[in-house]
C-alpha cells in the first residue's frame, strides 16, 4: 500500500505535458514546416481580407490601358481587359484556397468513414467498398476529371453567387476522386486495430458498433489521416489550378490562380509577370502544405518517416 502511494506521488510530480504541447514542440523543430505554416497563414489572411487589401474591384475593366506595366497605381500591372492584376490575385486566393480546403476536408471525412466501415464490418461490405475504390483508382484520373468538369460546366447552384457556385461544382468533381486514398489508409489501420485487446474489451462491455467505430477506431487511426490531409491540400491546389488552366475548372471572369494563366501565352515575353505571379502563388502554397505535412508526420509519429 505504501509503495503504491509512493509511486503515484512520484508520478504526479512529473510535470504532465499535454499531448498538443508535445506535438507542437516536435513540429516547431522542423524549420521548413514552420516556414510553410507562416506562408499558409499569410495566404489565408490575404484571402480573408481580400476586400480590404485589394486596391480595386477585381472585375472592373478598363482601369488602365490593357497590359500596362507594373506601377505604383497597379502593383502588378493590368491584364488584357485592363483589370488590376494584384486585386485579382488576392481574390483568386479566396477561390483557390476555399476549393482546396473544402475538397480535402469533405473527401477525408468520407474516406475516414468509408475506411472505418469497410475495415470494421469486413465481409461483403468490405469487398463492395474495396471493389468500388479499386475500380475508381484504376481509371485515368486527369482525363476523367476533365470529362466531369466539362459535363458540369454549364451547371449552376441556384441562390449562390456565380463564383461560389462554380467553386462548389468543381469541388464536387474533385471530391468524387479524392476520398479513395484515405479510405484505404483507414481501412488498413482499422483492420489491425480490430484485433487489439482494448477493442475486444469495449465489445465485451457491450459497446455498440457505432460507438466502437467513433470512439476507438477513428481516433486511433487519425494521425496518418491528418498527415495525408495536409499533403493532399498541396495536391488539390495544383489539380484545381490545372483544370482551370485547361479551361475546365472555374472559368473567367471569376479569378483563380489557375485560370489567370490561361491567356498569358500571347504576351508572355512582353509581360512575363502576368505568368509568373499566379503560378508562384500556386507553387508556394502547395510547397508550404507539403512541408507542413512533412513536419506533422515527424511530430505525430516519428516512425512514419520514410
Amino acid at each position, binding site marked *: 500500500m505504501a509503495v503504491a502511494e509512493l509511486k503515484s506521488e512520484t508520478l504526479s510530480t512529473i510535470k504532465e505535458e499535454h499531448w498538443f504541447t508535445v506535438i507542437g514542440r516536435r513540429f516547431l523543430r522542423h524549420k521548413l514546416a514552420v516556414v510553410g505554416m507562416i506562408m499558409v497563414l499569410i495566404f489565408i489572411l490575404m484571402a480573408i481580407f481580400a476586400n480590404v487589401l485589394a486596391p480595386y474591384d477585381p472585375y472592373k475593366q478598363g482601369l488602365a490601358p490593357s497590359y500596362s506595366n507594373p506601377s505604383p497605381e497597379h502593383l502588378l500591372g493590368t491584364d488584357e481587359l485592363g483589370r488590376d492584376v494584384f486585386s485579382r490575385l488576392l481574390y483568386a486566393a479566396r477561390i483557390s484556397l476555399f476549393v482546396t480546403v473544402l475538397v480535402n476536408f469533405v473527401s477525408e471525412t468520407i474516406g475516414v468513414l468509408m475506411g472505418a466501415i469497410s475495415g470494421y464490418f469486413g465481409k461483403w461490405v468490405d469487398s463492395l467498398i474495396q471493389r468500388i475504390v479499386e475500380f475508381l483508382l484504376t481509371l*485515368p484520373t486527369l482525363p476523367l476529371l476533365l470529362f466531369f468538369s466539362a*459535363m458540369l460546366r454549364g451547371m449552376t447552384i441556384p441562390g449562390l453567387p456565380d463564383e461560389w457556385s462554380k467553386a462548389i461544382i468543381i469541388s464536387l468533381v474533385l471530391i468524387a476522386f479524392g476520398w479513395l486514398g484515405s479510405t484505404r489508409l483507414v481501412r488498413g489501420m482499422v483492420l489491425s486495430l480490430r484485433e487489439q485487446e482494448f477493442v475486444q474489451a469495449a465489445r465485451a462491455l457491450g459497446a455498440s458498433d457505432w460507438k466502437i467505430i467513433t470512439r476507438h477506431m477513428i481516433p486511433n487511426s487519425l494521425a496518418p489521416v491528418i498527415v495525408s490531409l495536409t499533403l493532399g491540400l498541396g495536391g488539390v491546389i495544383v489539380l484545381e489550378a490545372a483544370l482551370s488552366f485547361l479551361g475546365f475548372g472555374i472559368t473567367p471572369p471569376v479569378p483563380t490562380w489557375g485560370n489567370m494563366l490561361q491567356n498569358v501565352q500571347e504576351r508572355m515575353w512582353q509581360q512575363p509577370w502576368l505568368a509568373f505571379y499566379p*503560378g508562384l502563388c500556386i507553387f508556394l502554397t502547395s510547397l508550404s502544405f507539403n512541408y507542413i505535412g512533412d513536419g506533422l508526420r515527424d511530430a505525430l509519429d516519428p516512425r512514419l518517416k520514410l
Partner: protein
Amino acid sequence: MTNYLIRRFIQMSLVVVAASMAIYFLLWLAPGGPLDELRQAGRGGVRQNAGFNDEQIRRISEYLGLHRGPFWGYVAWLTGEDWFKAIGREELQTSTCRSAENTCSKGVVRGDFGTSWNIARGSPVGDVLLSRLRNTMILMLSATVLSLVIAIPIGIISAVKQYSRLDYFVTTFSFFGTAMPVFWFGLMMIILFGGNQSPLYKVFGFPYLPTGNVTLVRAPLPGSLLALLDATPGSALDIAVHAILPTMVLSLLYMAGWSRFMRSSMLEVLRQDFVRTARAKGLRERIVIVKHAMRNALIPLITIVVFQIPGVFGGATITETVFNWPGMGFLYVYALGASDYPVAMAFLFISAVLVVIASLLGDVLYTIVDPRIRFS
C-alpha cells in the same frame, strides 16, 4: 495460374464495360452537347439567320445517331448498328447507314469508334487518334526513358548515402517537383528558353528553342537552335529539337517522383536481414549494394513502368497543351472543349482498357520476379 488469368479477364471486361457505360450515360445526362448548341443558334444566337428549326434538328440528330436515346445509343456504340436492320429496327440506324449500308458503324467491339462530330467532321475516330499517336509516343517514350535512366541511380545513391548532401538535394528536389504546377513550369521554361524574345537569346545570344508544334513549317529563323543545326523541316532532327522543351519539363516532373520512390524502396531493402547477412559474409560493399540490395529495390519499379503504358498512349494532357504538342492529351482536351463526344469516348475507352491491362501485367510480372507471390 490459368484459372486466375481467366477470372481476371472476365473481371477486366466487366470493369471496362461498366466504365464505358457510366461515361456514355453521363454524356447523355450532361447539359450542353451538340444539339443544345444548335437549338441555341435556333433561338437567335450570334447569327440570327443561321437558326435551326425542329425539323432540321431532327435530321441532324438522326445523322449523328442521337435519336436513339442513351440505351440503344450505347448498344450501337459498342456493337455497331448494321445488325439493327436484321432485327427489324431500322429506325435505330443513323440516316447515312440507312441509305448506304457500307457506312454503318461496326461498333467498338469490332474496332470502329464511329466518326468524329466536330474536330475532324466525318472522318473515322480511329484515324484521328492514329494521326496523333506518333507525336505522343515520341514525347512520352523519351521522357519516360530519360527519367528512369536518371531517377534510378539518383534514388539509389541517395538511399545508400542517406542524410548526405546529395540526399538532401534529392529530397528538396522531389518536394519542389510535386508542388510545381506543370503548366506554370512549362510557361517559365518557354519564357526563358523559347522564341526569339527569350531573355537568354536577347541578352546572351544563346540559341533559342522552338516552343510549339512538332515540326517546322518553313525554314528556321536565324538565331534558333534549328537554324544553327541546319535542320530541314520534317526531319528527325527537327522533331528532336522540338521535343527538347516538353521532354525536359515532363522528365523533371517524373524524376522528382520516381527518384523519391526509388530512394524509399532502396532504404527499405537496405534494412533487411539478407543485406546484413551479405555484409556479415564479408562481401565488398559494392557487391552488397549492386548484387543484393539494388536488384530487390528495383522490383517495385514494375508498378511505375507498367502504368506508363496507358501514359504512352494517353500522353501528358497538360504538358502537350502548354507546348501545343499535337498529341493524344492535347486532342482529348480539344475534343472535350468542342463537344466531340465520339473522340473523347474513344480516348477514355482505350485508356481504361490499357489501364486494366497494365494492372494485370504488373501483377503477373510480380509473380515472375518474386516467386513467393502466388495467385490462386
